């Protein structure tokens, strides 16, 4: 039948056009994929291969390619306390950052009015100074003869009589340094909440506390998840805070990796620790995201 021919050719044309469009979409992916291949996948593979190297029998202190899984078990057996400490410190810092950042982000999103841009700039402003410098500043702030320590000592609140070179200082430094990464995502998701929903909650007999628990908090969950991840992940791998603010008893896994790489030149152990750290964080993050159920939040 005559009309069928043009209809068919039209559909093939449409199909061709959409095929072409999807091909363009794939082309757009190439730069990103290239970047990832060169700067992420290749180093990762190298790192993994290094982590399995064995010490050369002829030349001690150098390493030859191998498949020595005991690098992992040995490293973990030796450094598990630092491993655990990393996650404890990072977890504490994340919790403190959340407690500090949530009210701040809430205030900026709902109450700050015309001051909101200024306040956001102030949140980010410390990042204009270098990370290292800021952490050094904390060394001064928390110094044994500094105002914070003397003040708390006067109140007999410090068991050891000091803050610097203790775990408290490391957690405080981590909390401070990663606070903006908590505030910004929280602000973004709180700001997205339609204030009329909170009013509706009040209208439906929800007290301010109930409305917070049942409306505001669940709606800010994407920000909470993003903020805790952005704080926890770098904090768990950080070594500067423990290096500058902690004692040798407060070392984190980042310090161990750094020492093994730079001082002992024990590349396989350092690589094995790095890889293990990455794997553990990945597993934790995935189960956390699954548990918090943020996928179906709008």
């Amino acid at each position, binding site marked *: 039948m005559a009309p069928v021919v043009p209809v068919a050719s039209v559909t093939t044309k449409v199909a061709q056009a959409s095929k072409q469009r999807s091909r363009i979409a794939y082309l757009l992916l190439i730069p990103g994929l290239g970047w990832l291949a060169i700067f992420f996948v290749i180093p990762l593979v190298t790192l993994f291969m290094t982590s399995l190297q064995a010490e050369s029998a002829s030349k001690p202190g150098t390493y030859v390619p191998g498949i020595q899984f005991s690098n992992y078990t040995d490293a973990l057996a030796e450094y598990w306390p630092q491993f655990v400490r990393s996650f404890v410190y990072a977890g504490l810092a994340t919790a403190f950052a959340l407690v500090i950042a949530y009210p701040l982000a809430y205030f900026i999103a709902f109450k700050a009015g015309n001051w909101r841009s200024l306040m956001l700039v102030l949140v980010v402003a410390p990042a204009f100074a270098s990370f290292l410098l800021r952490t050094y500043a904390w060394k001064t702030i928390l110094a044994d003869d500094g105002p914070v320590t003397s003040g708390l000592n006067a109140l007999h609140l410090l068991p050891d009589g000091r803050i610097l070179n203790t775990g408290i200082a490391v957690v405080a430094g981590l909390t401070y340094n990663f606070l903006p990464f908590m505030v910004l995502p929280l602000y973004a998701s709180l700001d997205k909440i*339609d204030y*009329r*929903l909170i*009013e*509706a*909650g*009040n*209208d*439906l*007999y*929800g*007290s*301010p506390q*109930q*409305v917070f628990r*049942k*409306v505001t908090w*669940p*709606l800010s969950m994407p920000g909470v998840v993003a903020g805790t991840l952005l704080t926890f992940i770098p904090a768990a791998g950080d070594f500067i805070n423990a290096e500058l603010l902690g004692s040798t008893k407060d070392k984190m896994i980042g310090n161990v990796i750094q020492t093994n790489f730079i001082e002992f030149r024990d590349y396989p152990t350092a690589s094995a620790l790095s890889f293990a750290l990455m794997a553990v964080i990945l597993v934790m993050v995935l189960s956390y995201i699954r548990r918090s159920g943020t996928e*179906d*939040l*709008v």
Partner: protein
Amino acid sequence: MPGGVARKVEDLRLVNLTKQFGGTKAVDDLSITSPAGSFFALLGASGCGKTTTLRMVAGLEDPTHGQIFIGDQDVTELRAFQRPVNTVFQSYALFPHLDIFENVAFGLRRRGVKDVDDQVIAILELVELSALARRKPSQLSGGQQQRVAVARALINQPDVLLLDEPLGALDLKLRRQMQIELKRIQSEVGTTFVHVTHDQEEAMTMADTVAVMNAGRIEQMGHPAEVYELPRTIFVANFLGQSNLIQGMKVSTGDVVEVSANGLGFRIPSKRNVAPGQSIVIGVRPEKIMVLDAHDESKLPAGHNRIYGTVTDVSYTGVSTQYLVETPWGQSIIAFEQNSIVGDRCELGDPVVLGWAPEHTFGLDPAEGLNAGLDHAVLELESDTEA
């Protein structure tokens, strides 16, 4: 309140309620009494302060001054969650993270009601959404969302239910259906409803009392028929339905006010006149006017007000015929004639006489200007014909 069968129905009283936003008075010295169990409609143009009024009643906005009473209780100082009032919001404001069931159950759960299932299922049945109970609001159509919003408020059996244009997003058929439904629910639960709407037909058919609001004030309030038949300001005459308004001067007063306008004499019962001075605007609704061929003037009852003119437009709408008649002084008068007259209708260009009873005439104060409330009425008419 919760689950009470023999619950007391309360009236709503607003006393000198005022809300100032910076320099603008959104609500200006408003005093309203909505009797217990009544259906109160608040009608007015966009931005006249309807939403602000409802928000003050709900407790979401603090009045600049004035008081709000529910029954004998002064609730002005109570927080929103402490008031026996629920709102159907103009924007629905459904919780996006909760499914329909949980949205509807929200109010009951906050008040600690243990077994909510039966009540939620019953109210969802009422708004015909039982099948969608486990969907999220974003998966519903606008009309379905609106029904959820109504159900979510109603399930709490509040003393006063505030509805802020709850039917605006519905198509005409669903809107009529929901109007009937709302009206039925209202007479069933006996709650005092305060219903804000743009749709005057909706206001007139549903409400026991309509209040026409303009720029933060109540222009006129009363039974729909009363407000329609006897508007007290030019704004109301133009805003609620249509009116023919003619400017004139009083000639004599007494039980009947005699008015001279454009060389013609008109009569108005003085109780239907509110113009204080010499100058007056007389008005008549289009359906009150009889349209007769000039030769048939003798058929007009004696004592009727009358105007002579020429037909410039005839539109047959089925139920009625709509005439536009131009007067010698260049004004267009609208008249609706029921299509029940035996014989010929008047035709384009015919000289006609328009007649109506003095008892259908109203006298208004001209101070507002003849166009008060008109722009909006025209818009309303256009959107009606679209629908």
